[in-house]
């Protein structure tokens, strides 16, 4: 299970098995989307699968996640999603209303995000498999002009930008499973971040070095991946990280670290210092970008690692997620 959680084990699986066997001749760090050039036209392609349980939760459902997740993977790779192909693996016995609700949700999400669903496939498996339904998507996007995303271009002194509050999605899912006697006014943050990315590109394009959407494994994992890929250190200021009180409360109660919790409507960006004010202002002015903040800086040390500083002079290493975030008891 740990291999799917987005943290260390997942990375090892990709780096150790998939990458060497499937794309041995490609170079460069692993990214959310691949960039290709066919007959001179550049575009990006990404693929993703969605196995969320429960299928519906406050703020969204698997259908919306599938569309937004794909759009976002492309957006943080510097691409505008144009078309998507979708596969459904359905569990025998899934009520038609449930399927219809998800298809409607996908259609609505696709329209909102400006992407066309052009191809699809369906399979049905026995009752007891597929948790109701699994969805897989493949998205293709055109490159946004002026953006060049590459972890290797990150330099000491660059600023780390976070688009909004963290932890909403993961905690919402945890609570909506109903295993905990915990209630909160929370909903998933699932949304397409493309409008924010495009605004960022317009305001600070030449200064954007790297972007990522912190889904499974959270902000901690994404920043650790960056630190690994660029060989530098990331120092974040914990006080600056936007987080809703309900998420903080749930995490304190359960002993979870918000930095490890999945997000479905946020992104991280590394911006050259001379562009950082323009970048932040551009986001803060947009609906949905008001909570964007600069949360840290790239440094020489600690090389390859992420450090969180407290406002009173203490610090701690922020590691990548190991396994699934298990709530602490005692």
């Amino acid at each position: 299970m740990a291999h799917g959680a987005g943290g260390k084990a997942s990375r090892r699986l990709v780096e150790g098995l998939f990458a060497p066997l499937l794309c041995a001749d490609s170079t460069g760090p692993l990214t959310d989307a691949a960039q290709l050039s066919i007959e001179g036209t550049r575009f990006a392609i990404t693929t993703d699968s969605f196995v969320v349980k429960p299928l519906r939760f406050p703020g969204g459902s698997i259908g919306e996640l599938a569309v937004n997740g794909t759009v976002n993977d492309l957006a943080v790779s510097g691409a505008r999603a144009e078309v998507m192909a979708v596969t459904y693996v359905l569990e025998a016995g899934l009520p038609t209303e449930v399927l219809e609700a998800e298809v409607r949700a996908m259609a609505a999400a696709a329209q909102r995000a400006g992407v066309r669903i052009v191809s699809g496939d369906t399979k049905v498996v026995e009752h007891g498999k597929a948790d109701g339904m699994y969805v897989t998507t493949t998205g293709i996007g055109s490159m946004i002009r002026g953006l060049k995303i590459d972890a290797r271009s990150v330099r000491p002194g660059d600023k780390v930008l976070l688009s909004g509050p963290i932890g909403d999605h993961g905690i919402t899912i945890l609570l909506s499973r109903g295993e905990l006697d915990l209630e909160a006014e929370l909903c998933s943050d699932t949304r397409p971040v493309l409008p924010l990315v495009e605004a960022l590109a317009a305001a600070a394009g030449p200064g954007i070095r790297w972007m990522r959407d912190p889904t499974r494994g959270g902000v901690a994992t994404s920043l650790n991946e960056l630190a690994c890929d660029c060989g530098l250190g990331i120092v974040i200021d914990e006080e600056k990280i936007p987080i809703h009180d309900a998420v903080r409360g749930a995490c304190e109660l359960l002993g979870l670290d918000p930095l490890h919790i999945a997000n479905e409507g946020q992104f991280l960006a590394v911006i050259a210092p001379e562009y950082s004010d323009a970048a932040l202002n551009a986001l803060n002015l947009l609906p949905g970008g008001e909570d964007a903040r600069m949360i840290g800086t790239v440094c020489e040390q600690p090389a390859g690692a992420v450090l969180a500083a407290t406002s009173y002079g203490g610090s701690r290493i922020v590691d990548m997620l190991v396994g699934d975030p298990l709530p602490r008891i005692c």
Partner: protein
Amino acid sequence: MKFVDEFRAPELITRTSEEIRRLVDPARHYRFMEVCGGHTHAIYRFGLKDLLPDNVELIHGPGCPVCVLPMGRIDDGLALSQQDNVIFAAFGDMMRVPGTHGSPLEYKARGMDVRIVYSPSDALKLARANLDKHVMFFAIGFETTAPSTALTLMRARAEGIRNFSVFCNHVTIIPAIRAILDSPDMRLDAFIGPGHVSTVIGCRPYEWIAKEERKPIVISGFEPLDMLQSIVMLLRQLQTREAKVENQYKRVVPWEGNRAALKAMAEVFQLRPYFEWRGLGFISQSALRIRDAYAEWDSERRFDVPGVRVTDPKAAQCGEVLKGVLKPHQCKLFGRECTPEHPIGALMVSSEGSCAAYYNYEHRKTAAATMLSQTA
């Protein structure tokens, strides 16, 4: 956020650390043991060592109820659940703890029915919902969690729920502290006392530490300000050559403890004559077993327990780290053969384990302090 932010207020923290610097005798090296694993984690999580002068050393004690379980007990629990129709239920803490043939999560991946529960009453709920299965709750914890296990057993008996049992590994804190003080390896000046155990047992059980051993002990909360204030209180006692029990965690810990909780524990549990602790050996009267009146809900009497004693791998130094003789990174296997992903001992995976705390928060900090001042 109430009860959290006030105890993380930067100005108060800064002032308290300055007070600590004023109180320390520069010619002296202070050795304070924090008994509780939750305190160990708080120290690393909040970077508290950065705020203390170099001559105040914090030593990690054996207050991690998962870490002190010998591997044989984990194996026993897993062996009991391997029978058909048994659901193994335990706190999240237990899930990655290594037994000889794997952790509960690994057993789950191999097909055993393993469930994470957040309280023993959740395990009882599972029993009610799965009448064709037997739910075995692997109970761990010091006196902090023993009362809820006791209450759950009382409810199981009252409701006549037969498909439920508890594999009881509750241990008690006072014998562990006594074993530390009796150990020739340790020279300690004072104790930062466990916070949550004390909500149950109160502060009286620690009085012998002050009266007989002449060591100050301050029962502490878990926020940065709590721990720093506790250190101030310890330093003040040492300065005036006092030794007494003080309660810094007054907002949560009552001096007399929780009578109702203690009553429930006495109703359901009795002390085992002796119990084996990882690193500390056999300690008498240090662990709880289920009384005869509740024998039907005692996994050890419902099922055959293999009872195999498993010694730790020779190179692993879990025992010395548990006693505070070694710091986590001084164990030869730390960060190499033993990491959170492939742990040799429970100290590396338990949320209360000092090796896990050190690994997750500390071990790659290099010239971080200087870097921080440059980026400010």
